[in-house]
């Protein structure tokens, strides 16, 4: 509804960035916006068709259109008189440089402590019934995406290889783990590394044909690769179960102790009262450990020759070759290590759900993971984690907004606005932090003192 006013923002920002425009001028500009809304809204909002039986009747919604035009008018006026002058006069954000180092280390420890204690905090605050949702939907779900984001960050953020089909490796991990478990009865702890290895293998398989491609071309091929994997999963019914997927995937056990109510279960062995929360706690710590592993490996790799080569490759491939870096190996390792973590996440996903189907591995998933990496600031581990929390946590929070139904009526479903909010968040990011939430890049080597490199100074769209 605010479409027209958004498109105009760009032009007025150039013309009146520093001085506050006259109130009269702003008023007329806002009036123009309102008229635009009315013009655009006449066909799409004013006229509504209602069908009852075979009869279609036209209804004119003057009130709604007027309300929207009013909102556009007010928003435009507010933007011109308050927001635009404020934006023009504010100092650029340099959070990373302003916060003292000591505070940063303490903040880091506090966050890690919070994450480690999270299930207990959830249990204490929400009680046994409420904690399930908080641990499962917010804890485990979020951590899966954090891990996927970190995995893709190796390929896109560090090595600069735009991959739109990352979900394929997630799918390979999930299906290989599920098939190994259901066909050969292998335990989760055996399936997990095997799924990682298989996904890495597929990463290399994808890597070979696309070695010479970069940028848009690479993106298209990886996109197609993701779709091919999904279509194979759907159509190879004998092997994958097609649309029906694979069910009855064995749940992970605690060193052989299943999380069941029976005699030989985890609860009975430790003399605890059985509750489904035990399994959730366990799953939470498994994915937390996997995510920490991903982060640890990435941080270590960045300081090793291979990690430095990835970053150099992102910056300039020709320069890499002239310095004796084997770009073939560099690209293939980036693809395979990124894919391996996707595979781990997939194996965990299969074990957590107990059921998988191709529906979980659609292109939308790739897009969301890529959005997490881009929003977070390509290459920044912390940024990616924050972006995953905001994007996935935000989506989950929308489910919690049932009270909005009292305002907008019972047919209002906040989750339907998910994509709209994603879009708004993206647009806002493009305007204010085009290089992502954390755009500073820590150098991987320092001789005496550390200094962060501000990404604000970097040309947008470079590298």
């Amino acid at each position, binding site marked *: 509804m605010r479409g027209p006013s958004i498109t105009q923002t760009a032009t007025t920002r150039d013309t009146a960035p520093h001085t506050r425009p006259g109130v009269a001028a702003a008023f007329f500009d806002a009036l123009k916006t309102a008229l635009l809304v009315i013009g655009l809204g006449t066909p799409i909002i004013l006229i509504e068709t209602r069908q009852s039986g075979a009869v279609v009747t036209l209804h004119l919604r003057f009130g709604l259109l007027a309300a929207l035009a009013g909102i556009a008018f007010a928003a435009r006026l507010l933007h011109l008189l308050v927001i635009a002058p404020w934006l023009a006069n504010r100092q650029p954000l340099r959070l990373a440089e302003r916060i003292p180092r000591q505070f940063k280390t303490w903040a880091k420890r506090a966050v890690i402590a919070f994450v480690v204690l999270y299930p207990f905090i959830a249990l204490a605050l929400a009680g046994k019934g409420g904690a399930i949702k908080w641990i499962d939907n917010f804890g485990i779900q979020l951590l899966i995406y954090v891990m996927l984001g970190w995995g893709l960050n190796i390929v896109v953020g560090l090595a600069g290889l735009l991959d739109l089909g990352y979900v394929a490796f997630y799918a390979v991990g999930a299906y290989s783990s599920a098939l190994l478990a259901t066909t050969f009865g292998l335990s989760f702890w055996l399936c997990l590394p095997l799924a990682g290895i298989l996904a890495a293998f597929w990463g290399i398989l994808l890597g070979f044909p696309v070695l010479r491609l970069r940028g848009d071309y690479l993106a298209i091929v990886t996109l197609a690769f993701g779709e091919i994997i999904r279509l194979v999963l759907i159509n190879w019914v004998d092997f994958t179960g097609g649309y029906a997927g694979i069910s009855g995937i064995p749940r992970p056990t605690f060193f052989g102790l299943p999380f069941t109510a029976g005699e030989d279960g985890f609860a009975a062995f430790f003399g605890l009262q059985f509750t489904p929360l035990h399994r959730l706690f366990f799953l939470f710590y498994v994915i937390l450990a996997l995510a920490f592993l991903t982060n640890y490996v990435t941080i270590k790799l960045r300081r090793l020759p291979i990690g430095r080569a990835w*970053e150099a490759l992102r910056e300039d491939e020709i320069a890499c*070759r*002239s*310095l004796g*870096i084997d770009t073939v190996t560099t690209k293939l390792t980036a693809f395979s290590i990124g894919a391996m973590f996707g595979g781990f996440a997939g194996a965990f996903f299969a074990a957590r759900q107990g059921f998988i189907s191709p529906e979980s591995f659609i292109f939308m998933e790739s897009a969301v993971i890529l959005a997490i990496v881009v929003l977070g600031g390509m290459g920044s581990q912390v940024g990616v984690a924050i972006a995953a929390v905001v994007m996935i946590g935000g989506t989950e929070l929308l489910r919690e907004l049932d009270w909005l139904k009292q305002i907008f009526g019972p047919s209002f479903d906040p989750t339907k606005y998910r994509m709209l909010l994603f879009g708004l968040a993206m647009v806002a990011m493009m305007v204010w932090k085009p290089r992502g939430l954390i755009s500073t890049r820590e150098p991987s080597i320092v001789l005496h003192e550390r200094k962060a490199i501000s990404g604000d100074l970097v040309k947008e769209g470079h590298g």
Partner: protein
Amino acid sequence: MTAPLLQVRGVTAYYGKICALKGVDIDVNANEIVTLIGANGAGKSTLMMTIFGDPRAREGQIIYDGHDITQLAPHEIARLRIAQSPEGRRIFARMTVLENLQMGASIDNLAHFDEDLERVTALFPRLKERLYQRGGTLSGGEQQMLAIARALMSRPRLLMLDEPSLGLAPLIVRQIFDVIRDINQTDGMTVFLVEQNAFHALKLAHRAYVMVNGEITMTGTGRELLSRPEVRAAYLEGGRH
């Protein structure tokens, strides 16, 4: 007389169907500065890139220090201690100066990193002040210094420089050429220099080649070529320094 460090024999190279090098012969002796001059599009950069393995030579032979490197991949060629500073500097813009230098030392896995860092920052004191600055924020001259310093970090026996004077002020060009002369005289570094700035390059070079349309048309010592009327007419007059 020992065999030249680098021998290029009858090398042809193509971009698709377009022939960029038509049977080029060049020798670069150890401890020598050899310059290749020529107009835009003559094939100078292509020759340098072909020596470095990309694009590969279709015919002919490239022999370096007794090895036939004609069919080797660029990273294998770099391991034989040939370093290249490619056209347009191509430094890593988002990485710091120090990280750029580190990438230059990657073939030896940083074995002599500290020592070599001392050496190249002594050659280019400007870089020492800017070790933690991002490469992209350096001035053009500093970026060129970084590109040469980065190439030197791999301890090359043959240093190939593609147009180090490109887009730089005359004063900076002189500084950079002084450094090239310096590393040649003190360390005995063999340098193969591709240049459009014919006057400076010919003055610096022990020997030089002139390339026209993918063929070598003239060769001689730097001074000889400088005094030849056809060289003066084609590459010096009008751009008198």
